């Protein structure tokens, strides 16, 4: 078994650190990572508690396959109540931090309470300490991570930390590990900030046990080969996730100018070809590919900004290489803002990592601010003299930095689109569900995506379902509920293994079954994995219902429900949520009010939550 059967529990109020046995009964019902973290959360806190209060719990959860030789095994989940959504948040991250936590001998790290003064948690195998973090408070993620390594004289330490955005309660602040990987969404960084916890640093030499080396080697070899040979994997390796931008643009599903349009003229300037192109002065945006721990795909890109670009011209501290554009950052700083300046986009990406913010939520919030500005509702006096017009690259770079530092109009942008649009009396302009902003797919062109956005337990999210194939072959809402539901359950299972969902390009339930059974025992059948995925989806739903959310929150903004797509393959269509949602509730075994019915609870062994 790959579990250490050990949980590290830190009470920040009392400054106590304890270890306790992992609840193996729960591990058997919820698998690990996202699922197991959700179980610990609902059992450990009152779902109605304020997300930024000491009562909220912050859980770093590895999966049974985290830190193993299975490809993409670097992943962990941060599970907490999200301040952006007031719903359950589970933000998943790669890099090397999650595996290192496992190597230190812990399956889960649970933080509760609030430290009276800024601290960071230092984990070196059995030696765990809360150390003063005054010297890091008010500084960036990059400074914090690099300085902690220096102070402890160990470059192999892995750090997950927050920037000023997380300290100051930016609603979509994230937790960044390994400089440019992040538990990105729902504001989990601000939960960390509210606890006065600046960083978690880990060095692990315990490792992960292997029961039967020959059997493990056979499973790893088989699954690696499948992944290596798959077309989807090859595309991700060669072009990165940003290959999607050309596809979505051609399809007419690329949200542009705050979702007023569905295609963008400037994609040629920000797509993978543009990243790889050598510019007139010899500069090339893309440097190389970068993988997370144990990953065969390597979808990450390392890039640098042209030193002559206005954003960094006099700022040599940004002339180094760092994480480059992915599809979601390209979308959230590009089309949705009407901007096609690749260096401005790359710089904004740097700033998100340096200050610890979710690029999707920041970009879509700025998009709403730009629409409010162009409508004359937000005035130049409020925006620190920067015209927030669509297409203004300077507005992107300046506002990204102001939001990261919580200065000037950045404080308004830090509210997120929902709270900001409410403040200006135009709530319909927030492109969000449950307060969380959309990713780079328009719900009118991709109907199953729209249903997934509406029903995702953490607010609008593109990563909790996979209906691409059905959405790309048919533009109606018919028949989308079933693949949406099924893929939600499968992905809940994959997220709970400790592996990356991009492996689904090559692996289905049978492959995950082989790996999980090798790690946790042969009683993990395909049926049990699928049922576990469904149980996880329902326990998240139950948390949200207890937190006060209801079916009324499973909706989309009127722009997508009422205004037909202006062009593209879905021209003239609106999001057909009225068709899909009742069918979805019924398939889930939920009442028309979106509540799991008695049979569903019994079937999933969840009757205690009736």
């Amino acid at each position, binding site marked *: 078994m790959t579990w250490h059967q050990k949980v590290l529990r830190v009470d920040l109020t009392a400054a106590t650190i304890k270890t306790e046995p992992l609840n193996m009964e729960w591990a058997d019902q919820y698998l690990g990572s996202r699922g197991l973290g959700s179980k610990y959360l609902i059992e450990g806190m009152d779902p109605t508690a304020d997300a930024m209060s000491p009562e909220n719990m912050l859980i770093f959860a590895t999966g049974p396959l985290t830190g193993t030789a299975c490809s993409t095994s670097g992943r962990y989940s941060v599970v907490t109540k999200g301040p952006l959504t007031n719903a359950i948040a589970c933000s998943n991250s790669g890099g090397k931090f999650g595996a290192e936590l496992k190597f230190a001998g812990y399956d889960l790290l649970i933080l509760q309470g609030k430290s009276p003064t800024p601290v960071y948690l230092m984990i070196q195998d059995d030696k765990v300490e809360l150390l003063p973090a005054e010297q890091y408070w008010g500084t960036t993620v990059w400074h914090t991570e690099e300085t902690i390594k220096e102070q402890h004289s160990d470059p192999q330490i892995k750090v997950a930390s927050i920037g000023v955005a997380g300290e100051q309660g930016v609603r979509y602040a994230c937790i960044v590990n390994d400089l440019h990987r992040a538990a990105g969404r729902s504001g989990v960084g601000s939960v960390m900030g509210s606890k006065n916890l600046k960083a978690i640093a880990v060095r692990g030499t315990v490792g992960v046990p292997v029961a039967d080396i020959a059997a493990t080697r056979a499973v790893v070899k088989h699954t690696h080969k499948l992944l290596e040979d798959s*077309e*989807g994997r090859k*595309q*991700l390796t*060669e*072009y990165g*996730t*940003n*290959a*999607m*931008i*050309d*596809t979505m*643009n*051609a*399809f*007419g599903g690329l949200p542009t100018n705050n979702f007023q349009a569905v295609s963008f003229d400037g*994609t*040629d300037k920000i*797509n*993978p*070809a543009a990243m790889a192109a050598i510019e007139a002065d010899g500069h090339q945006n893309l440097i190389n590919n970068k993988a997370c721990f144990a990953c065969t795909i390597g979808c990450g890109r390392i890039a640098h900004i042209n030193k002559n670009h206005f954003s960094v011209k006099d700022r040599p501290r940004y002339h180094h290489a760092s994480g480059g554009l*992915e*599809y*979601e950052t390209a979308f959230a700083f590009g089309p949705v803002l009407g901007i096609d300046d690749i260096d401005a986009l790359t710089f904004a990406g740097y700033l998100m990592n340096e200050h610890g913010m979710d690029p999707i939520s920041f970009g879509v919030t700025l998009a709403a601010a730009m629409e409010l500005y162009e409508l004359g509702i937000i005035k130049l006096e409020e925006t620190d003299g920067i015209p927030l017009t669509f297409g203004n690259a300077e507005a992107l770079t300046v506002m990204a930095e102001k939001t990261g530092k919580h200065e000037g109009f950045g404080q308004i942008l830090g509210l997120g689109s929902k709270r900001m649009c409410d403040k200006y009396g135009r709530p319909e302009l927030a492109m969000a569900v449950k307060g969380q902003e959309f990713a*780079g797919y328009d719900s009118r062109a991709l109907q199953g995506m729209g249903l997934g956005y509406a029903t995702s337990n953490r607010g609008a999210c*593109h990563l909790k379902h*996979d209906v*691409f*194939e059905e959405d*790309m*072959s048919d*533009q109606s809402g018919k028949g989308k509920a079933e693949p949406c539901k099924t893929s939600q359950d499968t992905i809940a299972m994959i997220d709970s293994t400790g592996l990356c969902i*991009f492996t689904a*390009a090559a692996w289905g339930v049978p492959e995950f079954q082989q790996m999980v059974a090798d790690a946790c025992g042969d009683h993990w059948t395909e049926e049990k994995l699928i049922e576990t995925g469904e149980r996880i989806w329902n326990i998240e739903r139950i948390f949200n219902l207890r937190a006060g959310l209801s079916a009324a929150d499973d909706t989309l903004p009127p722009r997508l429900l009422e205004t037909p797509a202006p*062009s*593209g*393959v879905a*021209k003239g269509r609106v999001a057909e949520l009225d068709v899909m949602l009742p069918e979805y509730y019924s398939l889930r075994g939920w009442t028309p009010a979106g509540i799991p019915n008695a049979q569903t609870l019994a079937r999933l062994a969840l009757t205690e939550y009736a």
Partner: protein
Amino acid sequence: MQVTIKAGGAIAEYVPGGSTTLDVANDACVSTVIELLGIPSDKPLMVIVNDDLIPAVKYATTLLAQDDRLSLVQPIQAG
């Protein structure tokens, strides 16, 4: 007649610069363009003509008209 081509992702390899204008016969269909560009038949492909998605089974029967806009991209499922 003339049609305009815009290619993205891996398909851009077959269209220097990513976009071009092609002279094709009046009875040209989607297949004609795919062959003209030299895109292998086993290459994952998504074709959109103006605002219509063309399923692969209709490449040979979808006739083109003057000034049609063809987008040829990869059908990607992650991002």
